[in-house]
């Protein structure tokens, strides 16, 4: 009999904090709209508090093996909280400028964050699915939250339809896994013979598709560019990072439960194919993009390709590399979206790259950080992105997957083409807009500074992060190194 005791309270305190803060914000919005200015601070506080509770939560499984607290979940929570913090920080001024400052935005963001948090902490397929859906529902709404803007509504519709479609696959996969293992707990998948069971493998594929969808992994990526384009930028900053990481962790959880040692070669081939397709398609199509948010969407698709290399490689080292990569991706990609959010004056119109012309001089800080983010995404050394690639390709080479590494590296060459094009527009073209970007708020500045510092610190001193990731990777039952 499972009751809600002190252990359960301690374990769920992070989520309870988030849920309560969201509800509080909605209530304040309804009954004390004057407090709006404090919503961002409140949200930040909730995120921080939740992170604090994560650190205090006792290690181990609770709720009858449905929720886990481990070094992995702690590291993942740190990752998620950092993303959420960046999103909240840039959201404040963004919403003010757009005239859409409303509590629901923060509430939905916090609830979505809660959902992602459940995804990484859940060790039960149902919990994970509910987390996934909480995230999805919140972000369907966030995508469409600018009701007066056609693009926003359309993004909402597209995200909703494709998301529901993906969820159907996920839930079908869950049903099959449940049917074969007799339990919704992931641990039940570690049964002898499951690795070769066709239904299990099929169900894993469905999950791969469903969570690959959340990761915007090609060919399950198609929603991402459209949704990113129409969605409010701060929400994209979160959506383009946190759920991707969480989905990857879920995939690792499920796959390690079934295959502790190594993936069967056909599955490896399939995942490698996804990685290659995602890298190549993402990078090549990004070259043709003119809207910076779409460009970043394709860049994100490509990055999910790189990170999926680690999934194909599989193993503790690979998972460590993946976690390091996630953090690198967090600071660079969330940072890039934060910069985009700061650099465009009109939030509701498209964001063509050309409008950034000459901002290198008019908004040196934001443009500088954006450049740094792009160099990091491109994997130039002394940035976090390089460290990420270093570990990912290192892991691939360590397991002898040279082909993947070479394709990956060629892809990052292609990617430099479009990253540099944006840098070129920033610094080497004359401004096209009469007015410069809006003045930088304190919160914006803080967000950008944090991302820039993260990029450089992780880029120059990655040891700490690596140790953290390594300890997190120990949580999963990998065999071997």
């Amino acid at each position, binding site marked *: 009999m499972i009751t809600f005791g002190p252990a359960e309270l301690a374990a769920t305190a992070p989520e309870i904090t988030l849920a309560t803060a969201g509800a509080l914000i909605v209530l304040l919005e309804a009954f004390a709209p004057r407090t709006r200015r404090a919503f961002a601070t409140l949200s930040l506080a909730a995120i921080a508090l939740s992170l604090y509770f994560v650190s205090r939560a006792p290690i181990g499984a609770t709720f009858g093996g449905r929720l886990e607290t481990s070094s992995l979940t702690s590291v993942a929570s740190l990752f998620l909280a950092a993303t959420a913090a960046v999103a909240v920080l840039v959201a404040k001024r963004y919403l003010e400028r757009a005239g859409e400052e409303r509590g629901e935005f923060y509430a939905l963001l916090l609830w979505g964050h809660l959902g992602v948090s459940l995804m990484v902490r859940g060790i039960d397929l149902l919990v994970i699915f509910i987390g996934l859906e909480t995230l999805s*529902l919140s972000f369907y709404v966030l995508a469409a939250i600018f009701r007066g803007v056609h693009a926003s509504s359309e993004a909402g519709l597209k995200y909703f339809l494709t998301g529901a479609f993906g969820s159907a696959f996920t839930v079908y996969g869950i049903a099959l896994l*449940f049917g074969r293992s007799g339990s919704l707990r992931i641990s039940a998948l570690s049964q002898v013979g499951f690795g070769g069971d066709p239904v299990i493998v099929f169900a894993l594929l469905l999950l791969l598709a469903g969570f690959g969808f959340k990761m915007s992994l090609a060919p399950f990526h198609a929603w991402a560019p459209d949704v990113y384009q129409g969605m409010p930028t701060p929400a994209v900053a979160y959506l383009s990072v946190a759920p991707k990481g969480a989905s990857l962790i879920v995939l690792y959880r499920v796959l390690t439960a079934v295959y502790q040692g190594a993936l069967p070669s056909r599955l490896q081939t399939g995942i490698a194919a996804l990685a290659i397709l995602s890298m190549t398609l993402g990078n090549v199509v990004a070259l043709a993009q003119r809207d910076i948010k779409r460009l970043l969407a394709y860049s994100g698709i490509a990055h999910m390709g790189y990170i999926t290399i680690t999934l194909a490689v599989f193993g503790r080292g690979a998972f460590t590399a993946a976690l390091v990569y996630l953090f690198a991706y967090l600071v660079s990609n969330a940072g890039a979206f934060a910069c985009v959010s700061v650099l465009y004056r009109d939030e509701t119109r498209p964001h063509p790259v050309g409008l950034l012309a000459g901002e290198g001089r008019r908004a040196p800080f934001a443009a500088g950080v954006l450049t740094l983010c792009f160099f990091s995404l491109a994997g130039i050394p002394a940035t976090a992105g390089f460290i990420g690639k270093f570990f990912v390709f290192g892991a691939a080479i360590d397991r002898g997957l040279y082909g993947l590494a070479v394709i990956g590296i060629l892809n990052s060459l292609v990617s430099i083409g479009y990253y540099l094009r944006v840098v070129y527009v920033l610094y080497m073209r004359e401004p096209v807009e009469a007015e410069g970007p809006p003045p930088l708020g304190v919160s914006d500045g803080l967000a950008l500074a944090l991302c820039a510092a993260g990029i450089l610190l992780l880029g120059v001193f990655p040891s700490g992060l690596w140790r953290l990731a390594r300890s997190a990777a120990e949580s999963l039952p990998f065999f071997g190194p």
Partner: protein
Amino acid sequence: MIGKIPLADVLVVSAALFAIGLAGALLRRTAIVIFLSIELMMNAANLALLGYGAALGTVDGQIAVFFVIAIAAAEASVGLAIFVALFRHTETIDVNKINLLKW
């Protein structure tokens, strides 16, 4: 066997429902009907869950279905709200005509 019904039959029906839903999702153009088809796919999963639950003699299947139905309801409310919001801009929910964001 579940009573006198073979589990395999239940699963086949579930698979068929999933396939029909898939067909609807891919081939229909009205957003609402697409969503209906997706609901059908969810129901296919529900059927599989219940079938397995019954065959295994566990309550987990039913509970999972219970949650899925709740989620479906929530999805429906949000989805329909989005349809309505978009309809204000486009006067249609034919997805062939909803392509402002592309390329």
